[in-house]
């Protein structure tokens, strides 16, 4: 499959009064055509900074690129000027945000907000843009688009606003759609609608999606590949099946174990990960997870492991995979589907 986006060894730091916060430290991943890549991690793991870097939405200063490259269709984005980026944002790469209430413009009708990028990027007339706007609202499942197109965001419900955002983001048929926690602010029944819609649209408009989320359920539902981030690094990446059924990094085990299981027994304790994530103003020298890792060895504290390639698609940065390390089995709690899957 063709690579649409190549991120290599990306470093994004922020200058703060206290120290330099190393939010993203050497992140590399590829995004292929028509696939959904989920970036999972806790708050502060660098997942949003990574995605905003691709759009170059990081305010600089205080932020800065401290090395690495972001190639979109072979072109380097880091070297592009703000003017050049304006031609890419919304047209080639677009974004939907977590909170549709604060990311839509309250003083413009939804129709105008959709038309904005059509008029700018596709030189449409107002009438053409309106016509396309109606099609888009229809496409994202907003009932009665003729009336809704002239309404303001506050007249929409939460789920409809997110649909409106998706319509704006998809207006110019972007190659890449970055969805930053698109369903976190929504109720489960609305979340199901939006996830369904995103999958549907991906088939129709051939967009690659970067889905940023902390909800592993959403990942299982929507993603093809997964990158797990912790402490500004991708610590494990693989196809969705590899990450859920053959996870190798203790942090991935911890994440899978801390989700309650609907089928499971409520008497058993949840597998909490003790402690808190590292302070990226003073990042640990070795593996960022070492301080919370139950399997941590001496080497983990001082040396960040390289990626161990487990298959063509799965890579994991953990010393446990080194042949000199003791062999550790993943805990029961990290097993997804458990015995049911073994029987198959």
């Amino acid at each position, binding site marked *: 499959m063709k690579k649409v986006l190549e991120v290599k060894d990306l470093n994004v730091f922020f200058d703060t009064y206290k120290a330099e916060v190393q939010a993203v430290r050497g992140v590399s991943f590829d995004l292929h055509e028509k696939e959904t890549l989920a970036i999972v991690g*806790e*708050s502060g793991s660098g997942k949003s900074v990574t995605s905003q870097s691709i759009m170059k939405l990081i305010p600089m200063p205080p932020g800065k690129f401290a090395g690495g490259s972001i190639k979109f269709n072979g072109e380097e984005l880091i070297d592009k000027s703000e003017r050049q980026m304006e031609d890419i944002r919304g047209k080639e790469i677009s974004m939907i945000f977590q909170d549709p209430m604060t990311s839509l413009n309250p003083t413009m009708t939804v129709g105008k907000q959709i038309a904005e990028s059509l008029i700018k990027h596709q030189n449409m007339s107002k009438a053409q843009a309106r016509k396309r706007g109606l099609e888009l609202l229809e496409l994202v499942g907003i*009932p009665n688009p003729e009336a809704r197109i002239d309404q303001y965001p506050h007249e929409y*419900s*939460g*789920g*409809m606003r997110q649909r409106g955002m998706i319509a704006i983001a998809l207006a110019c048929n972007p190659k890449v759609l970055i969805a930053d926690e698109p369903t976190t602010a929504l*109720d*489960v*029944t*609305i*979340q*199901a*609608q939006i*996830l*369904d819609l995103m999958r549907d649209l991906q088939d129709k408009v051939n967009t690659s999606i970067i889905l940023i989320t*902390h*909800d*592993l*359920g*959403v*990942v*299982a*539902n929507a993603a093809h590949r997964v990158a797990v981030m912790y402490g500004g690094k991708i610590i494990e990446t693989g196809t*969705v*099946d590899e990450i*859920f*059924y053959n996870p190798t990094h203790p942090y991935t085990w*911890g*994440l*899978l*174990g*801390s*989700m*309650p*299981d*609907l089928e*499971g027994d*409520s008497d058993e*304790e*949840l*597998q*909490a*990960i*003790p402690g*808190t994530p590292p302070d990226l103003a003073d990042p640990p020298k070795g593996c960022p997870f070492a301080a919370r890792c139950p399997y941590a060895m001496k080497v983990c504290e001082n040396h960040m492991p390289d990626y161990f390639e487990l298959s063509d698609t799965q890579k994991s940065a953990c010393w446990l995979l080194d042949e000199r390390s003791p062999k550790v089995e993943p805990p029961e709690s990290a097993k*997804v*589907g458990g015995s049911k*899957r073994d029987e198959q």
Partner: protein
Amino acid sequence: MSNNKEKLLEIKNLKKHFNVGRKATLKAVDGINFDIYKGETFGLVGESGCGKSTAGRTVLRLYEATDGEVVFNGQNVHSKKSGKDTKELSRKMQMIFQDPYASLNPRMTVKDIIAEGIDIHGLAKNKKEREETVIELLETVGLNKEHANRYPHEFSGGQRQRIGIARALALDPDFIVADEPISALDVSIQAQVVNLMKRLQKERDLTYLFIAHDLAMVKHISDRVGVMYLGRMMELASSDDLYKNPLHPYTRALLSAIPVSDPDVEKNRERVILEGDVPSPTDPPSGCPFRTRCPLAQDVCAEVVPEWIEHEKGHHVACHAYDERFSERFDAAREAMS
């Protein structure tokens, strides 16, 4: 769950209406009935705006009820009472809030935050005892005495929630309303807080009303669960029963909407995806509030408010499809669904 099933709390036809604008009333909670047994965790779930938080707050009398009763240990919470009685009651009923960033006073030290209730109720004889109690509480929730003199901003979300829990425990309450105590936290931290709450419940014989929208977590922590929609209770059952054998079409839709962290299951499962949004609570549909989105809805649903039926022992539901009088009218719709 305790087997003796002693009722700690009885909620009878509880209503809380807010006046909004000129003539409009928002019926946030509109006649809910349930009991909470001693030592159990009662989970209250529903989507935003369904009235679950209002219900929790009204139970504690943080809001005055519009109608109905809350009986706590044989005592009516909402009756007129002296300041002394109110104080005594509030000691026994405490609350943990959703947002650990907003619910701790940023200008007070952790020690003072936790001890505020102790001071108000005069529970510590002297400064030393006050200090000791605070340190003991901090240790109970997994913090330590070095934390006592710090301010809330020096803590992470999970640690703040622990402070909120310590504050609730300071008065040695019998009953705690936990209003979305983990929604603002990261997954790995959520598990820490839930495990802590479960441990404290065992050690201190606490009863919880656990309000959340995360059904998986509610299932995990609760003994019994009530499902709310637009101010009304739709279904109430033991948590295993509710998840294995959901009756109400709304409960079914809610359960099927939760994404499961298992890709194979996700690929193959049939979802009941609800159309549309929750109607405005200022102008709720007539009859059953869920009928506008219900896949089974019949004419009768618009005309008659469903009764609160005990379908099986301990499993209540408010839906005409389970009412003997109307049940047949749903046969065709049920068949079409399956």
